């Protein structure tokens, strides 16, 4: 009854092509964004911010990046971890070399550097397709991690091989380094994610997004109707890597505090790919839902035995966690191969008709 578009007449093209054409959607999105800024900073404690909300947002951004590439442009990539590492290390090098540079600018520049690297590793996609390409992107993953491990210049010759976020502030508030409060970091991450999610949403419904989807659905046909495959594919790699690089910089500076290459290994790539697939390929909302799912499930699995008063040995717990995680992924794929975003779509359809069956 509440979610209904009846009576909302569109009298201009701009109203028809609005990003959220239904009033209720607009209200929900605005309320959600405001609530995301206000509620956690007031209510949530350190643990929730640090262990749930901040990683959720950063993973969402990375998943969004991969979704642009895999979900919209149809290029399967397993190199996300590598591109995130580029972002993290680039931000570290930039901010230690130019300490007076605003940290947000540093993040964006790090994203641009990651985009450049992404373009480079996207070149094989012009020739290779499908799983062959996926395996080829693994080359990026392994090579980049090896590079950051081997060349001490990237870590400023730190003997431990780790990079540590130095304290930097924006508008007089410290947002990185050991003294930054969880609230400050949370708000920074949220602001960046909100802006770039909006940009992504607009990208995919515009000319660029349409070109990506044409290439994804049938690349030869797309080429014939005038979509340039080289430009489109490389653009997808570049923009996707920008998002991943930005997420990587935030991952080091706003979440982990300090990191080594191990944080960016192949498992991270798979984790982000899981988020995209469980959330829904080719859906901006899906990236967020998938990230929420992947962040929350392990926390849930760790806490359930405690709640029902079951004391299990740590090793056994770990193994059961793995099994349940794997099982859940298979279960979700069987129940809804198009991801959580599709479930949300179905719910919306149902809501429109409710309480009538047809």
């Amino acid at each position, binding site marked *: 009854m509440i979610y209904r578009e009846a009576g909302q007449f569109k009298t201009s093209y701009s109203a028809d092509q609005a990003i959220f054409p239904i009033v209720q959607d607009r209200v929900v999105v605005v309320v959600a964004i405001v609530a995301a800024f206000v509620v956690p900073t007031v209510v949530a404690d350190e643990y929730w911010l640090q262990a749930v909300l901040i990683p959720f947002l950063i993973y969402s951004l990375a998943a969004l990046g991969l979704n642009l590439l895999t979900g919209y442009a149809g290029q399967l990539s397993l190199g996300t971890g590598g591109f995130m590492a580029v972002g993290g290390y680039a931000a570290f090098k930039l901010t230690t070399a130019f300490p007076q540079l605003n940290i947000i600018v540093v993040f964006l520049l790090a994203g641009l550097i990651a985009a450049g690297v992404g373009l480079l590793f996207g070149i094989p996609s012009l*020739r290779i397709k499908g*799983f*062959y390409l996926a395996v080829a992107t693994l080359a990026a993953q392994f090579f980049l991690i*090896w590079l950051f491990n*081997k060349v001490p210049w990237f870590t400023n010759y730190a003997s431990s091989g780790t990079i540590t976020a130095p304290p930097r502030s924006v508008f007089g508030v410290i947002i990185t380094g050991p003294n930054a409060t969880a609230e400050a970091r949370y708000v920074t991450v949220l602001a960046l994610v909100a802006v770039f999610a909006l940009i992504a949403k607009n990208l995919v419904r515009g000319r660029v997004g349409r070109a990506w989807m044409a290439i994804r659905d049938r690349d*030869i046909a797309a080429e014939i109707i005038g979509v340039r495959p080289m430009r489109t594919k490389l653009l997808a790699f570049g923009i996707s890597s920008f998002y991943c690089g930005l997420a990587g910089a935030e991952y080091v500076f706003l979440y982990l505090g300090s990191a080594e290459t191990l944080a960016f290994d192949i498992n991270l790539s798979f984790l982000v790919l899981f988020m995209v697939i469980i959330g829904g390929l080719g859906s901006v909302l899906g990236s967020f839902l998938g990230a929420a799912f992947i962040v929350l499930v392990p926390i849930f699995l760790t806490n359930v035995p405690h709640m029902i008063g079951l004391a299990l040995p740590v090793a056994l717990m770990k193994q059961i966690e793995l099994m349940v995680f794997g*099982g859940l*992924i298979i279960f979700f794929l069987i129940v809804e191969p198009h991801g959580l975003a599709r479930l949300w779509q179905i719910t919306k359809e149902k809501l429109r008709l409710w309480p009538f069956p047809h």
Partner: protein
Amino acid sequence: MASVLYAVFVGPFKDMASSPSFLIEVLLGGIATGLMYSLVALGFVLIFKASGVFNFAQGVMVLFAALTLVGLMEKGLPVPIALLVTMAVMILLAFAIERVVLRPLVNQEQIILFMATIGLNFFLEGFGEMLWGANVKRLDVGIPDRSVMLVGIQVNQLEMSAAGTAAVLVTVLAVFFQRTRIGRALRAVADDHEAALSIGIPLKTIWIIVWSVAGLVALVAGVMWGAKSGVQFSLSLIALKALPVLILGGFTSVPGAVVGGLIIGVGEKLGEVYWGPLVGGAIENWFAYVVALVFLLFRPQGLFGEKIIERV
């Protein structure tokens, strides 16, 4: 600049020429490792050919088979019986995977099936470790991991017998595919699912057979790798080493898996020994991928893959 060029393009070849027997040792080592990669890649190819599933769990299947075998042997079962029981377990696993994972996902896109096998990967990893424990186990197959001198060249006994086993296995598989009734059915399914179904080939049975054969290949690979480096979690990571072999040889070609394995094995060893020191070593993680990538740029479907014909 000149010295760098010299170090990259001339130095290594001079080293090779100066001690040919060492070069032969390196090559033999490369061939042996390459064949062991082929063993893992074979499992991938079998499954991809018959069901179009890119089975990421193959590496964990190798680990699972080896863990089960060692676990049974530790329980005091004699080796032949332990082997038979492990084979039975792998076949049972094939039945379970077909029923629980593949059948509900029939007709889904390839990427969904790929993700499902990654889920399977996690599940089997936890399951195997829960059953048999996570500590490193030694697997003794009665062949010493020692080098012997053979006409002036050092050869590792274990690597050589692994290479021999791989060669036998590939021959058996080739005969099985080309000469038997089931093999013909498998090839038919690989060519065209629907056409195969329409002439009465039972798809489900074929999938079970293929996954069983892949499970048995995984067992052989598990025994060989386990004897070489101990049975432990890192065994499942050799799946990642088999991937470049796979794209190099083509996803759908059994000979491709073997030739690809040899190229990657030899290339990797040569690169590591002669060019590795130039960049500080430890390049084996990505070098194989770069080799494969270079080949792919010229043949996008791999060396022996089916020619990609695209229609709109």
